[in-house]
């Protein structure tokens, strides 16, 4: 680089990494520092949220802040922790290298919070320690001698209450310092492993070309990081270093040295010495608020009632509250489409705009109210601390099929829509448990299946003579079937395809906290935006493709919509499909519905309306029901016999009839193999079960 080029380049914006344990108030601090100046994305190749924000120093200079995922240790056990490790060690080329680190610790729980920080101090970068939740600590009788801690660690320590904005000015001042000191804290690596650490560090510096301080940190990490979590972007060790590590491990095994344990112990010993100096405890005799809440919430009887009440509230709001904005959106989309129809000359372009684009966009945003409510609840449950309790209560049941309690909320969300459910699996650390949860989540009956069930039940047991109870019974049966299927397949996958480590449930139960509405709202909007980008674009694309398939080739002038659909590509495909679906009682009319409902399952209903030339609207499906009951096979048999209606419901319970879910699974698993497998196993099961139901029913004389 020439010298004048150098002069023209402005000084690089300093990059801070923000890290700490989960539940230490990191997001609140990040939001408070950066306001809405945040970019939320994804680390390429892993499904870990990447958040980078900007703030200003005291002198108005920009500062970049990377909000790293919460973690307990640099020895990664989940993709989240692996990203933290790799960014801090400078292993990721896709993320700016942090120059400095802001560590956040929950002041009321300093000892455990200091473990991660102790590892970070080894990295040889300037560190600022933020002691968050000082007020809560004081309330539970814990005082911290900040000046003493500063002296022990040799870094600035800033007491803070991120929720009230206290301490932010001091933090900004510290972040603006150009002379931030390197940590002074030294601890002795225990004798049995010290020679190994220096040998590994030397090899890492020489062979793997690591800077000396990073080499030491990496060497220490190699002893505890069993590298179970390799994520895209982490580089492998050179053979020289790997063989040194192996030799030492062999030797230690022969000697009976517990190398990983020794290392963790010595860190905690050093931390205990510090904490004895700086933490002042006053015995508080009254049980904390959290303890009293937990006495009810995790009570053998009341616990279930609370869980049931929370879930009921969640689903009531999704299904009732969402209805108003959904109708509003529906109405406006229809209005918009009418307006375009009146303003444009009839033709293909107009149809593409009204039926393809507006219909497609409408199909996406009509789900948004439900998704927003779902995300609002999930954020609320996470931020208050109830999510961990739900996992705690449900763990035993989930363990029956080899999963753990953390799969509960994703599966539950899938009753509303599998897409947010699948996106919520990110909290599951174990990659195999997460994959199993993703694979079975779409079996939970989502809200898009509801219109299909309702139509089939209406056709199966026509209105007046049948008591409501039996209709509800059939509906519940479908939900039960899907749920059983999900658990059954989870059990099967955990035993065969994705046999893994024995499941564990090592989880912190954080104290209950009143969430800040701003943080909850921000999280909800971020996730909804992610949903729109992930699923929205796919739903839109598929809607247009499916519109094209049912609009072309064009029928001669004057053809009815029914004739048009019959001879379109979709209609032809339905006929091609007939031999495959005839054994389960479906004809090509139904085949068309199976194809078009890949956009979203409820499209089946409107397709049936077009296929059988019946007026439909959301409020009243009576004309369609009648049209269905009059539909006949060429030989005069009724097409929608009660048995076929029932079989069709069973088919919809199991079949992977949703391209948006497929697209999201592809993103979240980062592979084409798993979504392909998912389509195959789900639709295969749907066909086999439908075959059994239909042929069995016929044999029994239905």
């Amino acid at each position, binding site marked *: 680089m020439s010298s004048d080029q150098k002069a023209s380049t402005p000084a690089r914006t300093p990059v801070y990494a923000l890290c700490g344990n989960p539940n230490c108030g990191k997001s609140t601090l990040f939001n408070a520092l950066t306001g809405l100046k945040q970019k939320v994305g994804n680390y390429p190749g892993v499904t870990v949220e990447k958040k980078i924000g900007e703030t200003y120093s005291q002198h108005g200079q920009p500062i970049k802040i990377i909000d790293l995922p919460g973690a307990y240790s640099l*020895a990664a056990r989940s993709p989240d922790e692996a990203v933290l490790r790799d960014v801090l060690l400078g292993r990721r080329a896709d993320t700016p290298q942090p120059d400095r680190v802001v560590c956040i610790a929950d002041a009321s*729980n300093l000892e455990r919070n200091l473990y991660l920080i102790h590892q970070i101090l080894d990295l040889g970068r300037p560190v600022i320690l933020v002691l968050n939740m000082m007020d809560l600590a004081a309330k539970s009788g814990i005082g911290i001698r900040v000046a003493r801690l500063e002296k022990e660690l040799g870094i600035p320590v800033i007491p803070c209450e991120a929720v009230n904005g206290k301490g932010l000015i001091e933090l900004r001042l510290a972040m603006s310092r150009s002379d931030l000191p390197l940590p002074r804290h030294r601890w002795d690596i225990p004798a049995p492993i010290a020679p190994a650490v220096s040998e590994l560090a030397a090899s890492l510096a020489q062979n793997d070309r690591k800077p000396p301080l990073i080499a030491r940190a990496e060497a220490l990490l190699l002893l505890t990081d069993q590298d179970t979590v390799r994520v895209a972007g982490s580089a492998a060790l050179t053979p020289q270093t790997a063989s040194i590590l192996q030799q030492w491990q062999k030797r230690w095994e022969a000697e009976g040295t*517990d190398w990983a344990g020794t290392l963790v*112990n010595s860190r905690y010993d050093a931390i205990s010495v510090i904490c004895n100096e700086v933490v002042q405890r006053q015995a508080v005799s009254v049980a904390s608020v959290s303890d009293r809440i937990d006495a009810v919430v995790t009570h053998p009887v009341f616990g279930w009632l609370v869980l049931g009440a929370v879930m009921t509230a969640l689903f009531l709001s999704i299904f009732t509250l969402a209805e108003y904005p959904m109708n509003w959106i529906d109405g406006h989309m229809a209005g918009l489409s009418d307006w375009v129809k009146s303003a444009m000359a009839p033709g293909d372009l107009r149809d593409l705009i009204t039926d393809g684009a507006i219909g497609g966009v409408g199909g996406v945003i009509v789900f948004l109210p439900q998704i927003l409510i779902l995300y609002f609840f999930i954020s609320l449950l996470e931020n208050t601390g109830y999510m961990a309790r739900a996992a705690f209560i449900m763990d035993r049941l989930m363990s029956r099929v080899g999963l753990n309690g953390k799969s509960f909320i994703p599966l539950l969300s899938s009753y509303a829509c599998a897409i947010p459910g699948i996106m919520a699996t990110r909290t599951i650390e174990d990659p195999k448990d997460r994959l199993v949860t993703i694979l079975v989540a779409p079996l939970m009956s989502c809200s898009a299946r509801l219109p299909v069930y309702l139509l089939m039940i209406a056709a199966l047991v026509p209105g007046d003579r049948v008591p409501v109870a039996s209709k509800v019974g059939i509906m519940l049966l479908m939900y039960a079937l899907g749920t059983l299927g999900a658990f059954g397949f989870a059990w099967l996958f955990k035993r065969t395809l994705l046999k893994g*480590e024995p499941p564990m449930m*090592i989880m*912190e139960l954080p104290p209950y906290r009143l969430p800040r509405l701003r943080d909850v709202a921000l999280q909800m909007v971020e996730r909804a935006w992610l949903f729109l980008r992930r699923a929205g674009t796919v739903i839109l694309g598929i809607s247009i493709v499916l519109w094209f398939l049912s609009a072309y080739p064009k029928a001669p002038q004057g053809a009815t919509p029914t004739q048009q659909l019959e001879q379109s590509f979709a209609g032809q495909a339905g006929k091609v499909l007939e031999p495959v679906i005839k054994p389960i009682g479906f004809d090509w009319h139904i085949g068309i519905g199976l194809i078009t409902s890949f956009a979203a399952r409820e499209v089946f209903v409107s397709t049936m309306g077009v296929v059988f030339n019946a007026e439909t609207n959301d409020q009243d499906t009576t004309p369609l029901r009648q049209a269905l009951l009059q539909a006949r096979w060429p030989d005069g048999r009724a097409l929608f016999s009660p048995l076929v209606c029932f079989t069709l419901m069973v088919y919809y319970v199991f079949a992977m009839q949703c391209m948006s879910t497929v697209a999201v699974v592809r993103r979240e698993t980062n592979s084409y193999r798993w979504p392909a497998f998912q389509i195959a196993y789900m639709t295969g099961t749907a066909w086999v079960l439908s075959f059994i139901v239909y042929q069995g029913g016929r044999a029994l004389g239905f």
Partner: protein
Amino acid sequence: MADTQKLSQLTIGASAVVREMPKQGPAFLRLREMGLLAGTSLRLVRTAPLGDPIEIKVRGYHLTLRKSEADQIVVEPSSAN
């Protein structure tokens, strides 16, 4: 050494000190990193409504683990609290 027992057999509300942690296995490494080491004192707060997992208080915070792990951790009940 006084009487020891498995962590999973501790009665609810009882306090104890960890005496032995298994050396192998990612679960125990993680438990150590979460601060559960030989010599650490803990209190069994409760078990989940269905009996598993258990909740302990250790180093001032609440942690859950399954009985299958707790079975392999040896503790010595202490009279304090």
